[in-house]
C-alpha cells in the first residue's frame, strides 16, 4: 500500500497547543482518539446520527465524526476532559452525577459537551431549549428526564456563581 500524504495539524486542544501529522481523510474523531489519546470522545455511529462524539469547535458543539481533522486546523477544540477535571469539575459534570443522569455513560461525553455549548450561549435556557439543544444526542438508558434536570441544575448553579462574582 502506498504511503498516504500527510499534513501538519495544529490545534488548541483543551487549552494546550498540539501538533500532529494527519492524513487528509482522517476525521477529527479519529485523530482525537487515536493520535491524541482522547478516548473520552466516543464513536457511536460514525455518521452524525447519535452525538456521542460531540466536541466544542471554537465553542460550538459539532460531531467530530463528521469533521475532517484538517477542518479544525488552527482552531480550538474542547472535549469532555477540557470542560472539567477531577480536581476542578464543571457544574455540569457534578449535576450529571448527582441527578442520576448517567447510566451506561456512553452518551455522557457528547451530552455534557453539547450542554456546555448551550449554556455558554444561553445561560438560562428553558426546558424546551434544553430539549432542542440535546435532540441530536441519543441516550438509550435514561429516557432523558434526569439529563434535562441535570442541565437545569447546572445552569442554576452557574448563574448563582455569576451573581456572587458581581
Amino acid at each position, binding site marked *: *500500500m502506498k504511503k498516504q500524504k500527510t499534513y501538519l495539524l495544529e490545534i488548541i486542544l483543551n487549552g494546550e497547543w498540539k501538533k500532529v501529522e494527519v492524513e487528509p481523510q482522517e476525521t477529527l474523531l479519529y485523530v482525537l*482518539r487515536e493520535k491524541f489519546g482522547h*478516548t*473520552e470522545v*466516543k*464513536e*457511536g*455511529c*460514525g*455518521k452524525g*446520527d*447519535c452525538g*456521542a462524539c460531540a466536541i466544542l469547535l471554537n465553542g460550538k458543539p459539532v460531531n467530530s465524526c463528521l469533521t475532517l481533522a484538517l477542518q479544525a486546523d488552527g482552531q480550538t477544540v474542547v*472535549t*469532555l*476532559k477540557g470542560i*472539567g*477535571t*477531577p480536581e476542578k*469539575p464543571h457544574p455540569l*459534570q*457534578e449535576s*450529571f*452525577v*448527582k*441527578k*442520576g*443522569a*448517567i*447510566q*451506561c*455513560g*456512553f*452518551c*455522557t*461525553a457528547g451530552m*455534557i459537551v453539547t450542554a456546555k455549548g448551550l449554556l455558554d450561549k444561553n445561560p438560562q435556557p428553558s426546558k424546551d431549549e*434544553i*430539549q*432542542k439543544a*440535546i*435532540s*441530536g*444526542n*441519543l*441516550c*438509550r*438508558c*435514561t*429516557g*432523558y*428526564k*434526569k*439529563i*434535562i434536570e441535570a442541565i437545569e441544575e447546572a445552569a442554576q448553579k452557574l448563574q448563582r456563581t455569576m451573581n456572587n462574582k458581581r
Partner: protein
Amino acid sequence: MNIETEFRIIGKPIPRHDAYEKAMGLTQYAADFSLPGMLYGKVLRSPHASARIISIDISKAKRLNGVRAVLTAKDVPKNESVTRFGQTHALGGGFEGLYRVLADKKVHFLGEPIALVAAETEGIAEEALEKIKVEYEPLQGVYDSLEAMKSDAPLVEEGRSNIITHFEVIKGNIEEGFAGADVIVENTYRVPHVDHAYLEPESGVAWIDENGIVTLRVSTQVIEHFRGIADVLNLPHNRVRVIAPYVGGGFGGKEDITVESFIALLAYKTKRPIKLTYTREESIFCHSKRHPYVLEYKTGAKKDGKLTALQARLVSDAGAYVYLSPWVLTYSMVTAAGPYRIPHVKVDGYTVLTNNIYTSANRGFGAPQVCFAYESQMDELASRLKMNPLEIRKMNYLEKGEALATGEILEHHVALQETTQKAYQALGEKTKAKGHHKVGQGIASGMMSYGRMIFLHDTSRSYVSMEMDGSVTVRAGVQDIGGGQTSSLAQIAAEILGVSLEDVKVYFGDTALTPLAGTTTATRQLYMSGNATLMAAQEVRKTLLIMAGKIMEMDPERLDLVDREVVDKEGSDKSLPLVDVVRACASDGLPLYNVALYKAPFRNLTQFKRIEGPVFPDFTHGTHAVEVAVDEETGVVKVLKLIACYDVGRAINRLSVEGQLEGGAIYGMGYGLMEKIIIENGVIKTPSFSEYLLPTSLDAPEVQTILLESGDGVGPFGAKGVGEPSLNSIAPAIANAVYDAIGVRIFDLPLTPEKIVRVLKERNQRIGKR
C-alpha cells in the same frame, strides 16, 4: 416501616460511583483500550441471506502487505457447538441451539460471518476483505415465520425442521370457557424486529498474556462465555480469561457472543493483541434483534367483565440461528394470559427458523410481545362491554396465592390493584385537545419475571472482605452495563459493615479474579449477586461483632456497626473504633472475608412441550398510564403524559430505580411508536440511526415514576428486579390511549403516522365523512 430511618444507605437516592468516572471521561470502555503492537480485526460477511458457498479464495488477501491472518471456517478448531448460558447440563427441548463461528458450505442470513482478517491497520484489514473472493450459489430462502412453518418451505438448516419448538399451556377446557362467555374478542397482533441500539457498538481487545492465557477485554453482558470461547479454540476452560469493563449499554444485545470468538481466534493465530470494533452499520446488520411475533388472541368474558377463557397462538421469528429463541418463547408462554384470573386457557407457541437476522434477548425477553396483545385485548373487551378499562382489569387481577395458567403460584405480593389505581389517578384530567388533535388516555399493566428460569439452576458468588484500615473490598464477576449493578453491591456491603459508600471498592467482571456471578441478564444481578453480597457481608459482620463483644464485654447481639464504629444499639455511649476490631480479628487469625454462594430455587423439568408449574423465582408487577395527542392530519402521536407505577419491592438506590423506570418507559415508547427494523427478503433496510429511529429528547415526555415498596421481593432487603419489567406495558398503554383518542385500534406495532393516517381514512370512509 419507615425506610428513611431503617437504613443508612439502602433506599437513598445515592449518586453512583461509576457515574463520577463517566462524567469525568475516565472510564475506559472496550474500544478505548489499546495495547502495544496491536492489530485490527475485520469480519467478512455474507451479502446473501441464503446461498451455498461454492468456494472461498483468500490468497490475494493474504498477500496484501500488512495482513497478518485470514481465517475461514476450516481454521476454527471447533467451528460448531451449542449455545450455553451457564446451564449446568443440556436441557433438550431445543434449548441448546447450534452456534457456528464462521459460515461453512452455506450462509443462512445476510451478514453471516465467513472470514476474519487481522492487519496492521483498520484500513488494510478493510482492503483485505475486498480481496477475498467468495463464490455463492444463491438459494431460495424463507423470510416469513408463517411461511416457514409450511411443510413445503425451504429449510433454513438442512436436515432439521424450521419449527424449533412448539410449547403449550393448557388450563381447564377452552371450549367450555368460550361456551360460557357472553362476549368474545378475537384479534391478530403483530410486533416487529427491533434493535437494542446501545450507544456503544460491539468491541473487544484480545491478547495472549505472559502465561499463555487467551485474554479478552470485551463489551459483554456475559463473561462466562469464556467456556464457549475456550471450546471454539479447543483449549481447557481455565486458559481463557474474559474481562468486562463498564459496558456502554446492553439491553440483551450483548448477551450472546459478539466479537469474542473472532478476536480470540485472531489473537491465538497471530500471537499479537487484536482489536475489533463493529461499525454501527455492522452492529445493526449483524447482532440479534427482538423477536417479531404474530399473536392470535381470542378472549372471552361474562357480561360483568369476568374473564372466562383465553386462547392464543404465538409464532416468533427466530431468524437463521436458534440462539435464545426457545427461552424467549418460554417467557412469552408463562405470561401469555397476563396477570389475570382466567379459568380456561390454551396457548400454543412456536418459534421458527427463517433466513432473517437471528433474534434473541432484548430487554423484556418475550414478555412485552404478549403484553401488547393481552392488554390490547382487555381494552377491546372493555369497549365491547362498555366498561371502564380500569374496572375490567381490577376485577380480574390475580392476587397473591393464586396461580398463573401454567399452575405457577404467585407466592409474593401482587400489587397490580395498587399500581393500576395509582397510575390511573396520576393521569388526572384529560388535557384539552387543540385544533386537529385528539387526546386520549390509556393504561396497561403487566407482569414480568426477574431472575432466570429455575431449571437453569442459577447461582451467583460474591466475595466481601474488610481491609486492615476498615475499607471494604467486594469481588463479584458481575458485568456492569449501566444499571448500577456494581454500585448496588457497594451499597449493600456498606450498609451491613457500617462504613460509608466511599469506603467500598467493587472489583467486577473478570473470570480470573472475581468469583463468577453469572450473567447481567434476566434482571438478575441485584437479586442474585445482591443476595450473595449480602450473605458474604453478613458473615464478615458476624466475625467483627463477636470480636467486638469480647473486647467490650458485651453481648454481640446488642452491637451495631455505624460510621466505622462499633456502637451499642441500646444507646449507651460505649463504642469502639472499627479498625481496632479489625486488627484484633487479624491478630487472632479470624477470617475477615467471605465468599458466599447464592442459589436461586431449582427445579428440573421433565419435558418441554407443556409449560407447567414453577418457572421463575418471582415476578415484578406494574402499570403504565399514558395520555397522547393524535394529530388527525399528520397521524403523529405525541405522548403528553407517561406514568410508570411499579412495586419495586424495596428501592436499593432510589435514583437507579427511577432511572430504570424512566429509561425503560422511553425504550418501550420507541417500541410502541417508532422502532422497526425493516427487513425485505432478509435485507435490513434500516442500518443507521437516521433510518432506524429512536426516541430523542424531543419525543420523550417527562416520565413520572411512582415507586411502591411492598418489601416482598426475593432480592436483598425484599427488593424486586425492575430493569426489564420497566418497559413491559408501555406499548399497549399507548395503543389503548390512541384508541381512546380516535376510536380505532391498530394491531401492529409501531404506531407510525402512516398507519394512523390509514386507519383514520378507513374510519372516515366507514362513517361516511369526506
